[in-house]
């Protein structure tokens, strides 16, 4: 009875001034919808950025050699460092936080097929490179251990490079020329997509992968060793171990290559984790929440003033209720409930719009770098929480004001 009465009265209060009710409800509806939608969208942006960064390899850390730092060489002859495959093995043994380790080499070179010759980013890889970069095979096979041992002239090419070089048909088994040598295409990498983090080269979709050992024969290596690689790639299992892994990696290499572990210039490191950390994702989500919450708050203030006016207009009614036996707390409860019904009504509509909108966009097929909202249960719970808070806060003052009505208005005023 009391809830039904509160509900009908809430509807009456809303009907009393349609324009005002519309604007007030609009505030609540919009506020709730935007809390849900903006938070979901924030998650979507975050996911989009993480996916974009992970396309180079999830949690991959890249290290490449530099020169001994100036303060570590009093004579001023800054020794140049280089990595060999033995260093990769060393890292593999010593760096416990590394889940996977590979050494890779690269050069820029012409790749040709028929009349087409393209300049491309050729990578000398190991079998584990597939895993480190998180790539899959779309057709054929990956570079194998046997390819490396026998220095085979085989190549696995990126999806976009395949399209540009070979077109549609007869891809696997085709012969291409790399630096004048014939290579057999044994596989095509699955499309990776737009990378937000790149290592000064083409995107994986444009790369040509050959066995690392084959690359040594094709590209004269600098330094004294024949198996000089350009970089060591490691993957850290947990993102929070990133800093610790860098220390481990630097220490392991410092021992092998005889430089000070504190020498920042001896080896360089980079990772998409650096960028991921710099992204103001939490701040952005927080800002979006504040924006949505502020709208909701403004709606709440609208409800508050509307209810205050309703209390003023219904003093006579309140007086009658008090005269026939209502306690102050009955009156408080009534107006609290009414305010809550109004807020709840708008909130539920807003929730439906926000959830509906987020879900409708969530399954949309979009290009790589366009975020789609990701709806989570906690977002809905948060919106309901904020909405409840606003409803309670907006009801507080009007209900208290209503309970202060002097019952003698029933006898005095007309």
């Amino acid at each position, binding site marked *: *009875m009391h809830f039904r009465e509160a509900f*009908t*009265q809430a509807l*009456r209060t809303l009907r009393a001034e349609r324009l005002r009710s519309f604007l007030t409800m609009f505030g609540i509806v919009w506020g709730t919808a935007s809390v849900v939608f903006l938070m979901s969208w924030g998650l979507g942006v975050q996911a989009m950025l993480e996916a974009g960064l992970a396309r180079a390899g999830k949690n991959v850390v890249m290290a490449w050699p530099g020169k001994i730092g100036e303060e570590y060489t009093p004579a001023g002859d800054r020794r140049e460092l280089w990595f060999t495959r033995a260093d990769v093995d060393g890292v593999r043994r010593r760096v416990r936080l590394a889940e996977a380790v590979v050494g890779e080499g690269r050069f820029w070179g012409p790749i040709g097929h028929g009349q087409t010759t393209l300049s491309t980013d050729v990578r000398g890889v190991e079998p584990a490179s597939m895993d480190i970069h998180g790539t899959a095979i779309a057709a054929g096979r990956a570079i194998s251990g046997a390819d490396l041992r026998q220095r085979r002239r085989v190549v696995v090419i990126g999806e976009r490079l395949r399209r540009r070089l070979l077109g549609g048909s007869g891809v696997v088994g085709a012969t291409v020329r790399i630096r004048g040598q014939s290579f057999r295409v044994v596989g095509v990498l699955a499309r990776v997509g737009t990378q937000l983090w790149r290592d000064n080269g083409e995107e994986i979709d444009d790369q040509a992968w050959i066995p690392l050992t084959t690359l040594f024969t094709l590209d004269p290596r600098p330094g004294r060793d024949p198996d000089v690689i350009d970089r060591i790639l490691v993957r850290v299992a947990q993102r929070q171990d990133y800093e610790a892994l860098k220390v481990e990696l630097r220490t392991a290499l410092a021992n092998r290559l005889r430089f000070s572990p504190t020498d920042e210039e001896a080896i360089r490191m980079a990772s998409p984790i650096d960028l991921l950390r710099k992204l103001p994702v939490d701040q952005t989500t927080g800002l979006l929440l504040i924006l949505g919450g502020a709208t909701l708050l403004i709606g709440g203030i609208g409800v508050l003033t509307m209810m205050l006016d309703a209390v003023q207009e219904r003093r*006579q*009614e309140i*007086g*009658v*209720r*008090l*005269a*026939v*036996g*209502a*306690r*102050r*707390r*009955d009156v408080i409860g009534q107006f609290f409930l009414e305010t809550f019904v109004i807020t709840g009504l708008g909130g539920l509509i807003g929730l439906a719009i926000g959830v509906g909108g987020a879900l409708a966009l969530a399954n949309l097929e979009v290009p790589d770098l366009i975020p789609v909202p990701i709806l989570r249960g906690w977002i809905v719970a948060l919106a309901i929480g904020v909405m409840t808070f606003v409803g309670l806060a907006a009801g507080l003052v009007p209900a208290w004001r209503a309970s202060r009505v002097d*019952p*003698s208005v*029933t*006898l*005095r*005023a*007309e």
Partner: protein
Amino acid sequence: MTAVAPVIALESITKTYASGRVWVEALRGINLAIAPGELVAITGPSGSGKTTLMEILGCLLQPTAGTYRFKGRPVQAIPPDGLARLRGEDIGFVFQAFNLLPRLTALENVELPLSYRRVPPRERRARAADALARIGLAARSRHLPAELSGGERQRVAIARALVGKPSLILADEPTGNLDSQTGNEILGLLRELHAEGNTVVLVTHDPRIAAEVERTIAIRDGLVERDARGPARDARETARDARGTARDAPGTARDLASRPS
């Protein structure tokens, strides 16, 4: 005069309002007792303090000083929630302006005091229907106040006052907003309730109404000027007489003059 314990007993009741920087003494020492089953008219000109007295009798207002006992209980000692309960269970109000809640039907209006007493809905509805039947408006129970005539509204209000079986029915200018004939019907109804044993106190500034009841208490300048008992007349007789008398509807808002602004 009577051996029964009074429903209402006022001793040296005073009420002082702050009106800006001026203090207004609305009541300056009222003594009176009303026994169960009495029909009493409280009269007085505007500004006499009778509305203030009415508010104190109805436990809507606490006196500044003095002792008010309702069925023997000192009202000043009752906490606000207790007063609300007292109003709900022991006092039935009838107002000049009817004061029905506009969005509730006649039946729901009559149910209102019972709903605050947590009477279960089924019983509440039955008792409210009985009360409406008692005042002859059973057929109108589903109507909203706006769909009822003034006299019907006041009868619904009387049913609302009756439904809780109160110890006291307090009627404040109950005929003030009605034409004379309807007013007389309402008066007749109140007399009937009295005849059935209810204690009825009605506040009026109309001396002709006052003249027709068995006891009249005249208030002037915050004091009891006169407390007169006349011969009790048969309710039906009075109602018949009153119906024949053409009488102007009394003014409505004059009591406002006594309220400090």
